[in-house]
């Protein structure tokens, strides 16, 4: 009975989603030849003016890296307030956790869109968008790592007369460094992937080059840029995984 209720619930949710999205297989079928034509026409890949693509790719890496660094600085005080072992004043605990959820809930792309309007086009707006969203993610991941840590060393520090923040800085942060550093690398890797599309809203990076090529229906160029994006994300993935393995 319970199982049947779960299945009925699942089917109802899927039916509601289908009603909203209105998937149309006939339209997909009609569009496939066009898609195939673009892919076939995209070869050979057009790497002419590779310097521009490389510069935009570097911009993507730079804004994702700087955005993650700024996010880490923003996240540190918030995460300390959002973790029970380190929060010096518990009335702040739930409001700060809600703030972190709100920052995480708004995508970096949306933040970038707002910052483009506020500070103008370019990677600076993208970096700010990445930083704000990632501050929420890092704050959440770090505070959870701190809440899951062995409380005994913290208690020993507290019993020796240390305040919560002091005990956290001396004991908790070094103890959980592998977990927090690993989470930071994961967010950095995610940001490199996510930053490849920020150019679509004028927030800098390789996405800007991609948008220009799509607008001109230059599919040789589009595929070349996609190849660079895949290489970039794979490299970030490998570097992050290797560093995480060393940390844990």
């Amino acid at each position: 009975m319970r199982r049947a209720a779960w299945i009925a619930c699942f089917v109802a949710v899927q039916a509601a989603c289908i009603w909203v999205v209105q998937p149309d297989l006939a339209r997909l079928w009609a569009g496939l030849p066009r898609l195939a034509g673009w892919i076939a026409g995209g070869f050979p890949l057009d790497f002419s003016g590779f310097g521009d693509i490389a510069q935009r790719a570097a911009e993507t890496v730079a804004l994702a890296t700087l955005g993650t660094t700024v996010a880490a600085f923003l996240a540190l005080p918030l995460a300390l307030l959002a973790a029970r072992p380190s929060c010096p004043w518990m009335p702040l605990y739930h409001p700060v956790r809600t703030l972190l959820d709100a920052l995480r809930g708004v995508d970096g792309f949306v933040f970038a869109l707002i910052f483009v309007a506020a500070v103008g086009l370019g990677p600076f707006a993208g970096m700010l968008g990445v930083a704000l969203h990632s501050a929420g993610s890092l704050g959440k991941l770090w505070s959870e790592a701190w809440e899951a840590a062995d409380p005994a060393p913290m208690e020993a520090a507290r019993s020796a007369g240390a305040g919560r923040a002091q005990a956290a800085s001396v004991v908790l942060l070094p103890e959980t460094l592998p977990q927090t550093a690993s989470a930071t690398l994961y967010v950095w890797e995610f940001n490199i992937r996510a930053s490849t599309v920020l150019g679509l809203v004028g927030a800098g990076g390789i996405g800007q080059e991609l948008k220009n090529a799509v607008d001109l229906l230059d599919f040789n160029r589009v595929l070349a840029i996609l190849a660079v994006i895949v290489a970039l994300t794979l490299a970030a993935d490998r570097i992050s995984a290797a560093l995480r393995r060393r940390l844990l």
Partner: protein
Amino acid sequence: MLQARPGLVVRGLDVTLGGRPVLRGVSLDVAPGEVVALAGLSGSGKTTLLRAIAGLLPAERGDVIATARPALVFQQHALASRLTARDNVLVGALGRIGFWRAALRLWPRAEVAAAEACLEQVGLVGLGGRRGDRLSGGQRQRVAIARALLQRSAVLLADEPVASLDPETAEGVLALLRDLARRERLVVLVSLHQPDLAARFADRLLRLEDGCLRTA
């Protein structure tokens, strides 16, 4: 915690945990230089009593009067595994060191020297730079004692300090606590499972049964 006559005085201590009374009217006295062992079955309230005396648990009723804020040697060491033995000992001095100095590991030289002296006192010369997770069980226990010593409290509480140690190391740790009590005139209250060790190293043995204290 009241500042009063030397030693440790506990009067009529009641502690309730999760709605269950764990300690009922516990009273005891320990004089400076004295080692008192606390025995009792698991769950009899030994850890609760030590934690209540250390101020880590609130008492419903009763008084704890000690010459100083007690230093507690925790069961299972409570060391930070990624910190060095020296930094773990320096945790005992955090009550005297400002936030930024501690957070940035700018330990005062005098405290570092004192930490090294405490490590030497517990027989760990030259191991200050070794990480907590690379020390043996006996060495960790000694670091935990050194951390409590650096608190410079006249009242030392130890919760099952030899529970996970081999007999030889256990005797070494208890002999050390007894020597410290004699030499530094410390109050030492230690919970022990082993009656033979308690008889050999303690001046008095107290037994906790169902939250009540009896003289053994």
